[in-house]
């Protein structure tokens, strides 16, 4: 009797999840990197570090961020409304007035470099007051954050 022909063996079908997890994680990383653009209004600067800081991490719903940043220590600081560079204080005033018209309950978050002379911050405050924005928030390091 001749030997029977060998059956073709079927490999077991299994669902390999690992590449799926790899791709998902890569997507997460991709979107986190992309989302950096949306947080670009938090420009890189050294915020004040008060002793026993009372600053709290609170979300402000309808806000606009005014950044006062030192690009070069030998030059005057620059003003940014969000991430948009503002050349003159008049322009800051104009843009703020426009935003206030669109959002009546607008609140301002003031992020200034800790080395900036008060004179520059006061000018920004005067513009905030002139636009009848009553609430503004000063950004500082909260307590317990290593210096």
């Amino acid at each position, binding site marked *: 009797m001749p030997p029977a022909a060998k059956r073709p063996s079927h490999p077991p079908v299994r669902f390999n999840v690992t590449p799926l997890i790899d791709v998902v994680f890569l997507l997460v990383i991709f979107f986190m990197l992309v989302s950096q653009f949306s947080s670009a209004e*938090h420009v890189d600067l050294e915020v004040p570090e008060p002793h026993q800081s009372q600053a709290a991490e609170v979300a402000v719903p309808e806000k606009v961020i005014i950044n006062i940043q030192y690009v070069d220590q030998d030059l005057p600081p620059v003003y940014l409304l969000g991430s948009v560079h503002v050349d003159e204080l008049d322009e800051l005033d104009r843009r703020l007035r426009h935003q206030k018209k669109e959002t009546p309950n607008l609140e301002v978050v003031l992020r200034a470099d800790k080395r900036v002379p008060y004179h520059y*911050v006061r000018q920004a405050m005067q513009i905030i007051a002139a636009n009848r924005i009553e609430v503004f928030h000063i950004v500082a390091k909260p307590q317990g*954050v290593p210096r």
Partner: protein
Amino acid sequence: MSRAAQDGPPARSSRPRPGKRFGRAARPTAGSFMAFNLTPMIDVVFNLLIYFIVGTTFLRAEGILPSRMARLGSAAGAQAIPVTPIRLILSQVPGPEERIRIRLEGSAAVPQDFEDLCRILINLRTGGIGFDAHTPVVVHAQDQVAWDHVVNAYNAAKRAGYEAINFGTARRSE
């Protein structure tokens, strides 16, 4: 020739054999051994590592000190009894070091630092001399005083329990 040889090889049955189900892993046979494939786990761990390294750069440890602009010329303000505010005056000490002088207008107390300022402000509030948590505190600072010092003064007043803290314009005495 036998009958079996005439018919050729037996036709394949479409019915699965008992105990051999579709999609089931092969049973380990004698001589085979189980081994963990570490490569996918390392892949995932590296991805997690990258995720957390990238993620930590997004966390900005920043808080906010809420403030309110002083209302000027409002109807309520016109009716209110005038309250003498506590005025904190910050000025820069001339010299190579960036030292500042802290003063309280109308007070003999001279705070040495912001901790001291906080202590004096608490004493004013609790001393029964007419000041309370609702007494306005106005922070005045010289033009060249660094923003860090101004925020420190604001923070000291907040720590001392005052609720109405504002920023003032430059004063002639500064």
